[in-house]
């Protein structure tokens, strides 16, 4: 049988279509983000525009946790810690950077003006700083698993919180200019929080990052790299036996998740009406994010996105009930977990669920198939003379002697 290396030539894709295929989800994401900002936000009013913003940030946070927790099965309950690291790094850059560039920490420039560019740079800085801490936290994951790893990540979140609480007061523009950029590193506001951060976070930016995170998560999931991560979650010994460097894959997932969490933290820090303080991004926030991932289905991107949106909107909708708000929220969670312990979709995506297939008459594709892949399966001539798609769609003959073979597809 021909080796993979010998087959690559016949599957070559032209560069042009590949670039288009590579970029269109991002361009579509930018278009949607623009549409949300320009059309939807004015229509729904400032209150719901803020909810929309919060949903976006929740999606970034939950989708990034889903990479390490859902795909990799590494139970991390310190995810808000990465947001905090990123948020503070970014806030430091925009606040003190603004002072040094323009003399004031106020908003500067219009859309994609100087201030916005500084903000985007701070997103990148936040991602990188958080990714480095992710590398640090990922290392224990090589030796620890399950509950023990959870405790380590919890400890990490707490350490970050305490470290931030030990920082000095935020400097005024005059003080900051005297201290120089390097002298301001320790001045992050301590336990009172980092006040006066320019509020650059807008619906447009939030949803551009939502698009980036979701597209990256999806591409990761359907790629060899992502499947290696899923394999580690399923059976580590078997994963090693087929050549997956489990240590590397695990640390990689931590780094990638932390990178996006850092960006989520940046968006949170620069949002109007929130204060960046160590309490906001503490243990409670980590648990909130974990709940989104568990509820949506560990490993399901669409599930986690929907759960993040629902769990952000729900407390707002229940505002009318005032005192009963949190009990109702908790009860709803308990009921969902009893009815669907694997979360909304388990490991599957929305379009892999039976309900979706029934409604839209789609073929029974396993997770991880892209249109391109299936098109190529169709073209590939196989020994049996049947196109690959047929192979996948064809149901096995029912064997009455083995009723166990056709279990519910939703089991996971």
């Amino acid at each position: 049988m021909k080796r993979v290396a010998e087959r690559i030539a016949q599957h070559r894709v032209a560069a042009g279509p590949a670039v288009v295929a590579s970029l269109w989800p991002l361009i579509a994401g930018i278009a949607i983000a623009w549409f949300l900002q320009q059309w939807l936000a004015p229509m729904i009013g400032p209150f719901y525009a803020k909810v929309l913003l919060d949903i976006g940030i929740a999606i970034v946070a939950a989708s990034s946790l889903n990479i390490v927790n859902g795909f990799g099965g590494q139970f991390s309950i310190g995810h808000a810690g990465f947001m905090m690291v990123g948020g503070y790094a970014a806030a430091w850059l925009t606040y003190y950077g603004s002072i040094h560039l323009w003399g004031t920490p106020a908003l500067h420039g219009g859309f994609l003006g100087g201030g916005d560019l500084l903000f985007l740079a701070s997103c990148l800085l936040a991602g990188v700083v958080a990714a480095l801490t992710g590398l640090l936290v990922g290392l224990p994951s090589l030796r620890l698993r399950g509950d023990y790893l959870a405790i380590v990540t919890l400890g990490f979140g707490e350490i970050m919180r305490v470290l931030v609480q030990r920082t000095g007061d935020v400097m005024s523009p005059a003080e900051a200019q005297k201290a120089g950029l390097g002298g301001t590193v320790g001045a992050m506001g301590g336990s009172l929080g980092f006040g006066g951060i320019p509020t650059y976070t807008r619906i447009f930016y939030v949803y551009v990052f939502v698009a980036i995170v979701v597209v990256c998560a999806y591409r990761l999931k359907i790629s060899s790299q992502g499947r290696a991560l899923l394999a580690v979650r399923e059976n580590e010994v078997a994963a090693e036996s087929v050549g997956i460097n489990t240590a590397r894959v695990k640390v990689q997932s931590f780094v990638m998740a932390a990178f996006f969490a850092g960006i989520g933290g940046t968006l949170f820090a620069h949002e109007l009406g929130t204060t960046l303080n160590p309490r906001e991004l503490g243990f409670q926030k980590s648990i909130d994010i974990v709940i989104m991932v568990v509820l949506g289905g560990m490993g399901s991107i669409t599930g986690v996105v929907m759960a993040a949106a629902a769990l952000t909107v729900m407390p707002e909708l229940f505002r009318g009930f005032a005192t009963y708000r949190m009990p109702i929220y908790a009860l709803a969670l308990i009921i969902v977990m009893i009815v669907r312990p694997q979360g909304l979709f388990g490991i599957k995506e929305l379009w892999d669920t039976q309900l979706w297939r029934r409604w839209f008459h789609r073929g029974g594709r396993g997770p991880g198939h892209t249109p391109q892949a299936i098109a190529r399966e169709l073209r590939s001539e196989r020994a049996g003379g049947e196109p690959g798609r047929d192979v996948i769609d064809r149901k096995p003959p029912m064997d009455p002697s083995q009723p166990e073979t056709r279990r519910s597809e939703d089991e996971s």
Partner: protein
Amino acid sequence: MSAAIASAPAALEARSLSLSFGGLKAVDKFSLTLPARGLCGLIGPNGAGKTTVFNLLTGVYKPDTGECRLGDARVDGLKPSAIAAAGLARTFQNIRLFGSLSVLDNVRTAGGVRARSGLFRSLLRTPLYLAEEAAIIERSLELLDMLGIAHRAGEQAKSLPYGEQRKLEIARALATEPKVLLLDEPVAGMNTNEKREMRALIQKLRDEFDVAILLIEHDMGLVMDICENITVLDHGVTIATGNAAKIQQDPKVIEAYLGTTEDAVADDAASAAGADGGA
């Protein structure tokens, strides 16, 4: 590839591998030479250390002493993933599949070890990545087809019946493009038909993939029939090596499996005494 030449390096060579768990010598000075395209067997009573040998060869355990070569490359002390990448694949006695992934994805995942694209290429979906993924999918489907489980490609691996799970493990092992394949009890729990099918399959694999095979099996009929060379382990010690005829005549092997004559005499005496007592 032509038949193995005497001077060519063996596909797999182990030299006096030893491993102790505390005071227990699990494997003692295990040596083995598996020629290219060879088909060898590893047998022994339960607890003889056969699976431990597999775990030593594949890097799950690090040997205390001894060395292990895969072709020209020294592999002892490497991580299991590195050894797999070097061309050693295995199946497990207690099946270890990626249960909630689809059958196809189980095989694709293993094929990923031959892909050159890393994380960034995967995220950007570069032409090389797309070509590699397509090639891996195509090969995975061919492997499934060859093992007769292609119609299950879209199903969850854990929903497969036992026999097909074993086949899927073999398909997954082959997806890594191994030079050496270790099969741990490939026909355990199978009926006569399935065993016959598996025997034909094992021989076919060698021709189709140019792979050397080492198998652990309790089914003596299978081992004696298809293995060119057999190694017998007992309590971690190699008690015999040779072809089927030689092994069957070896007094030590007979002793390991059936007990000594003195044991038999003692057993007889005991049962006779028991029978007398009962009468």
